[in-house]
């Protein structure tokens, strides 16, 4: 199966060409854009971990190491498309249009963190596992019924493939030929459980065979491979050629969440070694140096401007006025039914507000 579903790569770990098919499209402009978005995500992610350590936000879910998978795939989506992230995909959602402030508000426990900017079809992060595959299928199916060429992308991890909703999502999308890209980030671990305990299958991409849909396995730390192959899948979806299952093989360096200690279940030296060897951002830097696209001054200024952007978002998050408790009550239904209304009144009364 690994031979049938080879890990597609455009540039290798040393930043050298492996597949020249997209060479003409890999311009300095595109390369710098991908580098910028990956660095932005990484700096944000490190800030998120620090903010949690400082007690300024709640539990945070880091994704460091998965930037190529998230940014490459999000960049392949277009205006009006739908995105269904998990709680580990803010690298993708910030690239697709979520503001950094909104993302920080989410991790600060604010409902506002679930609301995308107007016109951006980004669903709130799925917290149950694999349930979002069906929402993506339904939303894509709706686009098909409306006769548009819009598509959905849905993110999920290797552990999610064990859930029933993984099967139901792929099967419904296959049966109804829904324009969905099922974007699996295989980072090898579902919290602590390694993929060998999750499945006997050698690849996740091969599961596509059972649904008569396209299956693609790629090097999820090669941003070009992710971007171009996801784009191909989206184009296929737009043309009515159905869903694709993409397995993007990657690695999370850190913990499942800030509430977890990965050294309990794996040798973190592996993560350190991977930082040197397979890091997605370092790889792109090596590529840019090989291709004479690298400019030290540009890189320094970029780091500074992104840091400033993130700090400004942190400030906005911290200065956001506290939410009013009415928000607990007022959005369960379009109109509050009497039990909620009377609970709201009683609560206000208990606080001396009424």
């Amino acid at each position, binding site marked *: 199966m690994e031979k049938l579903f080879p890990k597609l790569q455009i540039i290798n770990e040393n930043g050298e060409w492996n597949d020249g098919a997209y060479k003409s499209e890999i311009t300095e402009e595109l390369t710098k854009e991908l580098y910028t978005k990956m660095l932005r995500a990484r700096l944000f992610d490190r800030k998120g971990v620090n903010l949690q350590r400082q007690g300024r936000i709640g539990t945070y879910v880091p994704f460091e190491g998965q930037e190529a998978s998230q940014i490459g795939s999000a960049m392949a989506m277009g205006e009006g498309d739908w995105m269904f992230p998990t709680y580990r995909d803010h690298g993708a959602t910030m690239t697709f249009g979520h503001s950094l402030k909104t993302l920080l508000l989410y991790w600060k426990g604010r409902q506002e963190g679930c609301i995308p900017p107007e016109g951006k079809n980004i669903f709130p992060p799925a917290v149950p596992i694999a349930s979002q595959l069906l929402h993506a299928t339904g939303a894509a199916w709706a686009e098909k019924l409306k006769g548009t060429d819009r598509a959905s992308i849905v993110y999920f991890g290797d552990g999610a493939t064990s859930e029933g909703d993984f099967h*139901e999502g792929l099967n419904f999308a296959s049966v109804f030929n829904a324009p969905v890209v099922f974007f699996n980030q295989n980072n090898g671990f579902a919290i602590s459980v390694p993929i060998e305990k999750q499945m006997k299958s050698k690849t996740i991409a091969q599961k596509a065979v059972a649904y008569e849909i396209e299956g693609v396995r790629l090097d999820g730390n090669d941003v070009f491979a992710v971007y171009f192959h996801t784009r191909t899948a989206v184009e296929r979806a737009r043309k009515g050629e159905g869903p694709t299952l993409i397995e993007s093989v990657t690695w999370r360096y850190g913990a499942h969440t800030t509430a977890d200690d990965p050294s309990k279940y794996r040798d973190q030296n592996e993560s350190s070694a991977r930082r040197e060897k397979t890091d997605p951002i370092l790889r792109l830097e090596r590529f840019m140096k090989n291709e004479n696209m690298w400019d030290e001054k540009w890189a320094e200024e970029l780091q500074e401007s992104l840091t400033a952007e993130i700090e400004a978002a942190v400030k906005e998050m911290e200065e956001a006025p506290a939410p009013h408790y009415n928000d607990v009550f007022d*959005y369960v239904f379009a109109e509050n*039914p009497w039990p909620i209304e009377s609970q709201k009144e009683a609560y206000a009364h208990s606080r001396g507000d009424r």
Partner: protein
Amino acid sequence: MMTTAVDTKKLTMVQAVTDGMRVMMAEHENVIVLGEDVGQNGGVFRATDGLVAEFGEKRVIDTPLAESGIIGTSIGLAMNGFKPIAEMQFLGFIYPAFNQIMTHASRIRARTLGHFTVPMVIRAPFGAGVRAPEIHSDSVEALFTGMPGMKVVVPSNPYDAKGMLISAIEDPDPVLFLEPMRCYRSTKMNVPEGKYNVPLGKAARLQEGSDVSIFAYGAMIDVVTKAANAAEEKGIKCDVIDLRTLYPLDKDMIAESVQKTGRAVIVHEAPGTGGLGETIMSLINDTSFLYMKAPIERVTGFDTPVPMFALEDHYLPSADRVVQAIEKVAQF
């Protein structure tokens, strides 16, 4: 005064349900029906009979056999412009979809402060008494009345079924529309053609009486009506209320009734513990404690799985048990 002649048709409840869907599908392009066997077969109870011929396979969709898939994709369809009417073949088959309903359908509006909403209807036949196989007879409405963000409604007759289904389809939030199987073909009733609404959240008084209030819904309406008639022969006049909507309950009618009678019997076939009866008792406690002349009686299913059908008559509240409860509260 202007009067409008409204044509009516004699329909069973299941025909009234079909008619409600037909009317709304004809009026709104975005209303679609999906579920297992709902297309060519017209549903296992024929509730979607003829709809695929009239509206086509794009709008009346035979789905794969997967309840979570049906509800999960309906969520995606609903928040992207469609109004799915998702059929669960039986309420006892809804459990694989529980996660989708509990963690998504019921709370997406709240999670996003109203940015995303899930206007969908989940229809499900339910209840015992039709000699159905195992698991086909469950009455688990309380799992959903206890689920914030869901409305739960149960018609007991053809007129209400159509009017409430139309209201459920028009509702901007997810509604679980429960159809008592025992009532599907038990009676025919004049049902207006075209569109009309029976509002959600409103109970109906079926009999006026001053001695004992009876609260019931769905298939139990037939049982309590018989019991109320028997009680009347013994000189006890019952105020019979069909709750119709289980969340949110019609607080005003419940309170008004018990404040008049001071006595109440609550009847449902779902298990007693955690059932609607407890919610209604607390509502009476909150609104009418000082009016009560007797402890409230409940006649309910037992805290047991619904037995296989050879035993189901023992499980289901009977008119006899209800009469005994009425006499007990009347004589207290």
